[in-house]
């Protein structure tokens, strides 16, 4: 199969660096170019990827590399609509970061334009390619747990705002400046916006949709932020099973401008854990563990060194397969819509102190 000719846009998303190795190594891809959001980002990009041409203008990049077939949209959430439109108009397939937009009208526009163009638009939710999640999915499908009664899940990380400032700016992260609730000085756009995965997993693993969600915020760990960093989500799925989700930035970080070793203060900087109770028993899972451990450089702090992060192999396999064989990716815009709706429901619940129904 011919390698897919691909480019990256903006380079401001937290997952950007995860693609560099994949784009270079994966024989299914040919990495032609990148377009940086700013001169500073371009300079950093050039220093770590000297062989890949980097531009500051998206159109210029395409003019210079007219054979680009697909792009990875790695930008702030409020850029996604415009960039999707830009790609659709030029017939480029899209692999997009995890939040297309929180504005449901915009969201439906995006569905419409992608559909009409007949292009692949895959949302990057890497948990779908995680081997532990595969096992959970199989165990549930095999009926090991019977009907699901309850799911508890964490998607907790350190906060990436010091390296990716847009994640702390309500307009860029949530898309607009909306107070969390009356009397609270904070705005929508923080930890919740960073953590769609467990909302997606709740749907994918139970095979049903959300019935209602109730959410509440806790005092921020980082008082400097104007967005929420600690919250919990409670509710029920349509099948009557209940859930408790923790999508917080509950692990503290060194405030590095460029993430690297020593980023974490708590030993484990990222966790996706699940407890699923079913009529026939209980399953507990850590999607990123066990690992190896050290207390060496740079800070002599005890640190969880993750031993596997291969999700991007399966993710690219699916994306290339969809483009080349004209298939619909599992996490397309339509599938992903209810996940975004549920996250919006959390914000609505926080402001109303009441559960919010999903239709």
């Amino acid at each position, binding site marked *: 199969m011919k390698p897919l000719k691909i480019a990256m846009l903006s380079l401001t998303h937290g997952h950007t660096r995860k693609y560099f190795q994949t784009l270079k190594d994966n024989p299914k891809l040919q990495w032609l170019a990148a377009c940086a959001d700013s001169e500073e980002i371009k300079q950093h990009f050039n220093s770590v990827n000297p062989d890949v041409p980097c531009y500051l203008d998206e159109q210029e990049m395409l003019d210079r590399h007219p054979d680009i077939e697909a792009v990875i949209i790695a930008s702030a959430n409020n850029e996604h609509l415009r960039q999707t439109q830009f790609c659709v108009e030029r017939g480029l397939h899209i692999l997009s970061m995890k939040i297309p937009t929180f504005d449901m009208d915009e969201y439906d526009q995006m569905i419409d334009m992608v559909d009409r163009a007949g292009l692949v638009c895959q949302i990057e939710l890497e948990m779908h390619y995680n081997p532990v999640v595969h096992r959970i999915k199989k165990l549930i499908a095999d009926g090991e747990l019977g009907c699901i*009664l*309850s799911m*508890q899940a964490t998607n907790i990380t350190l906060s990436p705002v010091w390296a990716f400032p847009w994640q702390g700016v309500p307009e860029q992260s949530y898309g607009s400046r909306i107070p969390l609730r009356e009397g609270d000085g904070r705005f929508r756009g923080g930890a919740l916006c960073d953590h769609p995965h467990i909302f997606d997993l709740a749907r994918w693993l139970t095979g049903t949709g959300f019935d*209602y969600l*109730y959410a*509440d*915020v*806790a*005092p*921020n*760990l*980082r*008082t400097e932020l104007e967005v929420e960093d*600690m*919250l*919990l989500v*409670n*509710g*029920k799925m349509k099948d*009557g*099973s*209940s*859930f*408790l989700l*923790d999508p*917080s930035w*509950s*692990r503290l970080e060194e405030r590095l401008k460029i993430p690297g070793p020593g980023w974490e203060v*708590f*030993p*484990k900087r990222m966790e996706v*854990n699940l*407890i699923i*109770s*079913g*009529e026939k*028993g*209980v399953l*507990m*899972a*850590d999607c990123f*563990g*066990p*690992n190896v*451990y050290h207390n060496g450089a740079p800070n002599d702090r*005890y640190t*969880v060194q993750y031993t596997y992060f291969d999700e991007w192999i399966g993710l690219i396999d699916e994306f290339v397969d969809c483009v080349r064989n004209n298939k619909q990716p599992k996490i397309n815009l339509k599938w992903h819509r209810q996940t975004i709706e549920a996250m919006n429901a959390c914000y609505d619940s926080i402001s109303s*102190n*009441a*559960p919010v129904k999903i239709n």
Partner: protein
Amino acid sequence: METTHARQDLNEMLESLLHKYGVTPSQKWQLLLELRKAGDGLALLSGQLLMDTDLADSYVPLMPWRNERRFTELKQIVETQTIEHVSTLRLCCLTDSQSSTIEQLLYREFDLCEWLAGSTITGVFASITEGRAANVLARLANGMLCGIELGVALPAGSTVIDRHELIARRGVASDRVVDTQMPQSSIYTFTANGQAEYTDTDAELFGLSGEEITIVRAAYDTLADPAWAEQCRKQHSRLVAMAKLAIESDNKQQWLTVKEEQS
């Protein structure tokens, strides 16, 4: 409750502990392992066994988990400000359906929540499925938020799986070591009889199970300090009311506030 010893044994252990440390209770007393008509004097037993009963004057409802060393240490970590400005508590307790009801787990975890946080719960939202799994959010008077994950869906005979984590502006404290999911034990044996685990934390009461030790120590504390016994009775009433409130919250799909008389 896992009991490997008869009630008589535990009463004798408690008696010898009182003797060793020179404590002379002001009334007759008896330590009970199940709800039964109290005889003369005080009847000391876990508050979880008294949830469906009027609290007669002779009953002293114990919260034996407060005598678990891990919780004593967690409380101390908060009180000494080893972690500062707690924001969120994340509590989890899974058992089988024989050893606990969801109501009993709510009783225990609400108590741990308030005790570790050093504050009182002001309101709850709960989602409960078939009386076998409950997910609860509780807000505390001091502004902290608490998530409580409960279930009684483990197979019969399973040991309890729980976790108690406090997340603060400075630091996280937990009774589970990082990157693990399961409670760990002090001793593991692997023999032709299978795998067994042991965790002994109290040489003075060696031979008792962990739960037996905490009930003996909790009873000791109330006998050594009658004022503390009175506080247990007050806290018991609040905990019973809050467990009911959580179930009502699930039924009504509403956030419900803890009423004044409950605090």
